């Protein structure tokens, strides 16, 4: 890369890296939301079961 008059075209690496960052973070945030909703549903079901048992 040395001794070039103009910077080399490395934009595809740049976009690939940022695409991976966006996709990974999005997936993680979605996974947090899904886990929260699943646990919340489970808690509601268990609470109803507890009420029925009483």
């Amino acid at each position, binding site marked *: 890369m040395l001794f070039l008059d103009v910077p080399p075209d490395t934009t595809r690496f740049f976009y690939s890296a*940022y695409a991976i960052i966006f996709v990974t973070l999005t997936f993680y945030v979605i996974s947090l939301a899904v886990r929260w909703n699943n646990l919340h549903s489970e808690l509601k079901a268990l609470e109803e079961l507890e009420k029925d048992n009483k």
Partner: protein
Amino acid sequence: MTPTPRALRILEIVSLLLFAAAVWMVFFYSPLEAVMGAVQKVFYFHVANAWVGMLGFIAAGVSGIIYLRTKDLKWDIVEVAAVEISLVFFFIAIVTGSIWAYPAWNTWWTWDPRLTTAAILELIYIAYMLLRQGIEDPERRARFGAVYTLIGGLSVPLTFMSIRLFRTIHPVVVGGANAAAQGGFDMTPKMLQSMLFSIAVFSVIFITLFWHRIRIGNLAQTVEQLKLKLTQ
């Protein structure tokens, strides 16, 4: 279920706005580096992700120490949350580093001291998550986790210092120069501002996700306790 705290809602919005600002700085504000071109801009989020990743692993070690002293299971929840989020950020740092490496070093991966210690660090904490799954008793699991993160935490300073202690081709952009480094560059003020801003933004994002993950841990504990109560 406890509603989402107002402070967390505000933090979410602030995180999103700051993230958008950081992306703008990387794409439009920071200059194009003369030797590497656009791929140099991977550096800003790469460093920020590595920073919060290491921060989380240290936070997990500290939580482990507090758990061992107090035996309060809430510190186990904090510890797992810190490790899980750090694994995500550190994974991003490793992958983006590899993408940067190809045009800079002409290889996706090399067993350089920094890359090797970073890969080992990630694997140590992947193993932590897997091994935890195999322990049923919550207190035994928490004790194991605390000791593990305490010992695992020792690899964090080793990974950080590896480019300063060993002969490596990984550039030391901040606070030092390395004759063997390939792909290093001198930062202009705009580059430095972009890097520091990215680090600050990812620190805020880390806090937001950390808070959410702790809330999930607390909810999971409530569900687990209720299940136990119903089966007895």
